[in-house]
C-alpha cells in the first residue's frame, strides 16, 4: 500500500488543483478500496449469519465483501485487528475525511471559524469515517464516547471547540484507558464551556461553586445516578474543581488553565475520602477527585452496563455485565480489555438482531450495505436531523438515548431515506445497484441483495413483500430501486 499511497499523494499535488474538489478524492478513495468489489458471496441460510452479526455490532454493518473477509480470518482475529486500529491502513477513508481543514486546528485557532462551518465539517467527517474507515470498532467507540461525554455544539464556544474535543479527547482515548479519557474530557475546552466548569470559582467567601460539571461527572461520566454519591459529594467535587477555566481571548485562548486565585483552598471530602487543604494551591485536587471516582466500583459497573447495552442488548445479561465490570476494575479501566470481554462472549454472539439501530447507525449501515459513494453533505445530514440524531446536536449532557423506545417514532423517516437512497435521490450520494446486483450474483429477484443486507435468506413475508413491489414497478430499474429501498425499510434492517 505504501507505494500506492505515495503515488496517490504525488498525483494529488497536481491533480487536486485541477480536480478542485470532491470528485478527485472520491475517485482516488474508490480506487484504493472504498468502491464495490467485482464479486462477493452474500450469506445464506435461515438464521442470521454470525459474521454478519459480528459486523453489525463491532462495525456499522458489513460492506459488500466484508463478511467473506472476516469469515476467512475468524471473528476473534477480527476483534484483535480492530482493537489495534493504528496498524490498519485507512488511506481510502482519510482521502475523504481528513481533508477538512478545521479537523486539524487547535482550539485557539478554531475560534476564527464560523460555527456552522465547524459543525458541518466535523459532522461530515464523522459520517464519512463511520462509512469508510477500516477502523470500524474505533468509530463505533467514538460514537459511544461522544454520547457518554456529550457536548451540544449549540452552546457558545462548544460550536468550534467540539472539533478539538472530538480529536484530542474522544478519538485519542476511545480505545485507551478510561481514567485518561475522563481527565482529557475534564480539561477539554468544550467541556469546560458546556458544563460551566470555566465559571466554577471561589474568589470571595460568599461565592458558591457552580456544580454543573461536578454533578454530571458523577451522574453521567463515572458513578452513574445510583452510584452511591450524595448531594454533598457533588458540592465537594465542585469545590475541588474550582479554579479550572479556559479563556476565549488573548494568547492563552482555548487552553485550559488553573488559577489558584479562583480555587477553594479549604479541606474537602469526596465519597468519604479526605482531600486535605493542599500546599500546591489546589491544582492537584482534580487528579485526586478523578482517581477517587474512576476507581470506584460503581464506575466499573456503570461503564460495563452501558457498554454491554451498546454491544449486546437493551437489557444486557447481568452475568456479562459483572464480568465486564470485573475486567474494568482489574485493569484500571482498560477499554480494550473490557471490549474483549464483551465482544468475545457467548452472550454477544447469541444476541443477534436484539437491538434497534439508532438513526445514525441505520443511515451509515445503509450507505455501507449498498457500497454507496457519498460526500456526507447536506442531504445526508438533513436526513439524520429529521430522524432526530444529527451529530453533536443532542441538547442535554446524557447524550442520545441508546435504548429502542425513543426511536420507534422514526420509522417513516427511515423508510423515506431508504427509498431515496436506493433511487439515487439523496444529493451527493451515488449508488450503483446494477453493479451491486452483479457483484452479489443477483438473479433479478433481489434475493442475493436481500441475503447481503439481512445476513440471511429473506423470510417468506419479506419475499412476498419484495415480489409485490417488483411486480408493480413500471420498469426494471425502478423495481430494483424500490425493492432495495424496501429491504432497507424492513424491520430486520432496523435491527442489529
Amino acid at each position, binding site marked *: 500500500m505504501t507505494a500506492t499511497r505515495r503515488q496517490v499523494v504525488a498525483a494529488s499535488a497536481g491533480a487536486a488543483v485541477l480536480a478542485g474538489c470532491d470528485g478527485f478524492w472520491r475517485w482516488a478513495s474508490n480506487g484504493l478500496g472504498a468502491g464495490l468489489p467485482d464479486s462477493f458471496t452474500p450469506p445464506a441460510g435461515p438464521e442470521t449469519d454470525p459474521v454478519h452479526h459480528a459486523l453489525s455490532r463491532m462495525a456499522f454493518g458489513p460492506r459488500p465483501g466484508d463478511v467473506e473477509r472476516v469469515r476467512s480470518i475468524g471473528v476473534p482475529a477480527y476483534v484483535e485487528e480492530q482493537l489495534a486500529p493504528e496498524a490498519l491502513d485507512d488511506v481510502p477513508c482519510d482521502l475523504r475525511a481528513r481533508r477538512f481543514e478545521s479537523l486539524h486546528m487547535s482550539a485557539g485557532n478554531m475560534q476564527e471559524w464560523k460555527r456552522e462551518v465547524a459543525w458541518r465539517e466535523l459532522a461530515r467527517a464523522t459520517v464519512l469515517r463511520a462509512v469508510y474507515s477500516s477502523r470500524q470498532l474505533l468509530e463505533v467507540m467514538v460514537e459511544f464516547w461522544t454520547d457518554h461525554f456529550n457536548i451540544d455544539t449549540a452552546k457558545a464556544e462548544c460550536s468550534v471547540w467540539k472539533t478539538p474535543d472530538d480529536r484530542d479527547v474522544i478519538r485519542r482515548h476511545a480505545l485507551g484507558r478510561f481514567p485518561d479519557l475522563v481527565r482529557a474530557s475534564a480539561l477539554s475546552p468544550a467541556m469546560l464551556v458546556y458544563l*460551566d466548569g470555566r*465559571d466554577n*470559582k*471561589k*474568589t*470571595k467567601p460568599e461565592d*458558591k*461553586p*457552580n*456544580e*454543573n460539571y461536578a*454533578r454530571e461527572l458523577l*451522574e*453521567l461520566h463515572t458513578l452513574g*445516578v445510583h452510584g452511591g454519591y*450524595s*448531594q*454533598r459529594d*457533588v*458540592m465537594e467535587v465542585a469545590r475541588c474543581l474550582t479554579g479550572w477555566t479556559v479563556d476565549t481571548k488573548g494568547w492563552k485562548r482555548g487552553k485550559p488553565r488553573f488559577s489558584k486565585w479562583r480555587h477553594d483552598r479549604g479541606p474537602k471530602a469526596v465519597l468519604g475520602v479526605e482531600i486535605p487543604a493542599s500546599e500546591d494551591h489546589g491544582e492537584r485536587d482534580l487528579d485526586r477527585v478523578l482517581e477517587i471516582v474512576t476507581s470506584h466500583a460503581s464506575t466499573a459497573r456503570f461503564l460495563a452496563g452501558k457498554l454491554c447495552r451498546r454491544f449486546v442488548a437493551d437489557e444486557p445479561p447481568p452475568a456479562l455485565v459483572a464480568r465486564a465490570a470485573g475486567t474494568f476494575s482489574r485493569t484500571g479501566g482498560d477499554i480494550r480489555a473490557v471490549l474483549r470481554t464483551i465482544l468475545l462472549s457467548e452472550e454477544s454472539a447469541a444476541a443477534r438482531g436484539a437491538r*434497534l439501530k439508532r438513526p445514525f447507525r441505520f443511515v451509515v449501515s445503509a450507505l455501507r450495505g449498498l457500497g454507496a459513494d457519498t460526500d456526507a453533505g447536506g442531504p445526508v445530514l438533513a436526513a439524520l436531523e*429529521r*430522524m*432526530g440524531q444529527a451529530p453533536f446536536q443532542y*441538547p*442535554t449532557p*446524557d447524550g442520545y438515548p441508546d435504548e*429502542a*423506545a*425513543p*426511536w*420507534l*417514532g*422514526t*420509522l*417513516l423517516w427511515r*423508510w*423515506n431515506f431508504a*427509498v*431515496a437512497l436506493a*433511487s439515487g*435521490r439523496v444529493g451527493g450520494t451515488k449508488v450503483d445497484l446494477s453493479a451491486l446486483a452483479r457483484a452479489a450474483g443477483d438473479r433479478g429477484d433481489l434475493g442475493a441483495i436481500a441475503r447481503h443486507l439481512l445476513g440471511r435468506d429473506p423470510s417468506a*413475508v*419479506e419475499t*412476498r*413483500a*419484495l415480489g*409485490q*413491489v417488483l411486480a*408493480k*414497478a413500471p420498469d426494471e430499474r*425502478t423495481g430494483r430501486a*424500490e425493492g432495495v*429501498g*424496501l429491504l432497507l*425499510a*424492513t*424491520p430486520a434492517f*432496523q*435491527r442489529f
Partner: protein
Amino acid sequence: MPTVPSTRRAFLRMLLGEAGGAPRRDVLVVVYLRGGADGLTLVPPHVEAEYHRQRPQLALARPDHASVTATDRVRDLDGRFGLAPALDPILPLYREGLLGVVHAVGSEDQTRSHFEAQDLMEHGVPAAGGGTGGGWLGRHLRARPGPQPTALSAVAIGPSVPEALRGAPAASAVESLDDYRVAGESGARLLPALALLHEGGDPIGAAGRETIEVVKTVERLRGEKYVPGNGATYPGTAYARALQEIARLIRADVGLEAACVDIGGWDTHFFQGNLTGAMSGRMAELAGGVAAFAKDLTDRMDRVTLVAMTEFGRRVAENSSFGTDHGRASVMFLLGGAIAGGKVHGTWPGLSPDRLADRGGEPGDLAVTTDYRDVLSEVLARRCGQERLAAVFPGHEAKFIGVTRG
C-alpha cells in the same frame, strides 16, 4: 388496530360519544420546559424581601419600584406574585381568566438531576420506584373509558416521542403535518408491502402499523393550507410551529386527545438574563407561542387544556456566575376555558431560610407544597374523562386544589 372512521363526520360522532356513550373530552396539550425552569423568575414573589435579598443581580423589580422604568418591573398578578415582563403576551389571558398559575409545585425528586427528575415526572411514578410501565399520559390514554384511541390520538411534535407518552396505545412523533407521507410516487406502490412487513407483534411491527395509520389519516388532511383562526400569527420558532401544528390537528377533528411539545433552554446556570438574555428570550418564546395558540383556538378553548410544566425549579440564591443552580419547586401554567384562571394557586411556602427545602444539609430551595400529580390528576379527571387515577399515578392519592372550574 382500531379502524379509523372514514369521514370527518364519523370521527366527530365518535368523539361526541354517540357510539360509545362517553362525553367529549378536552384535548390536553403538554408543554414541557426542559432544563428546570426558574419559577421565581417566571412568577416572582415580588413582595418577598428574601427574593430580592437572595437574588441581588437577578431579582426583577417590584411593580411599584420607583427608580426602575415601568417596562422592566414585574407585572402584578394578585398583590403577592407577578409575571416577568417577557411573559407579557400571556398577561391578558390571565386577566381574562383563561390562564392560571400553580406556584411551589414539583415532584418528590431529591436528586436534582435533570434526567432523574424528568424521568420521574414523565413516568408519573413514586420516587421510591414503581413497577408501572410507560408515561403518565400514555397510561391515561390506556386507562380512560370510551372508544379506542386512534392513530392520531397522541402526537408529539418533535423528533421523538417523550417519556410521558410512552406506552400510549398509539403515539406518533411528527415535525409537521406536511411531512407525514411516504416519499414520492413510490409511496403508493410501497405502502402495501410495508404494511405486510409490519404485521409482527414486536415493537417495530406495532410502530410500523401505527405509522401507516397516521400516514393514511394525514393524507386526507393534506391539501388544505392551514390558516390560524382570528388572525393569530405564531412566532417563527420550532416550538411555536409545533403549537400551530397541534392547533391544526385540533381544528381538523382527527381524534387528537393528547399532544406534547418541548421547549428547551431553561438550564440557566450561567448569565441567566431575566430582562435581556437567555431566560428572557425563552420566556418571550414560551409566552408568544401560548398567546398565539389561545388566539387561534379562541372558539375551541372550552375543549382545550394546555399545561406547561418543568422538572424542577432553581435554587433561591443566585450563583456567582449570574445564574441559578438546580432546585426543587417551580411553577405550572394552565390554559383553557375550563381552567380556574386569573389566580395563583397553591400554598406559598415562603422564602425565609426556615421555610426552604433542605439541600444536602443546608436549606436553599423553594419547598414543594403541591405535587404536580395533584394538578394533572384534577385535569385528567375533570376534563379528560379519567375515572381511574390510580392507574395513571400509582401510589399517589390525588388532592384536587381547584385548578379547574368545578
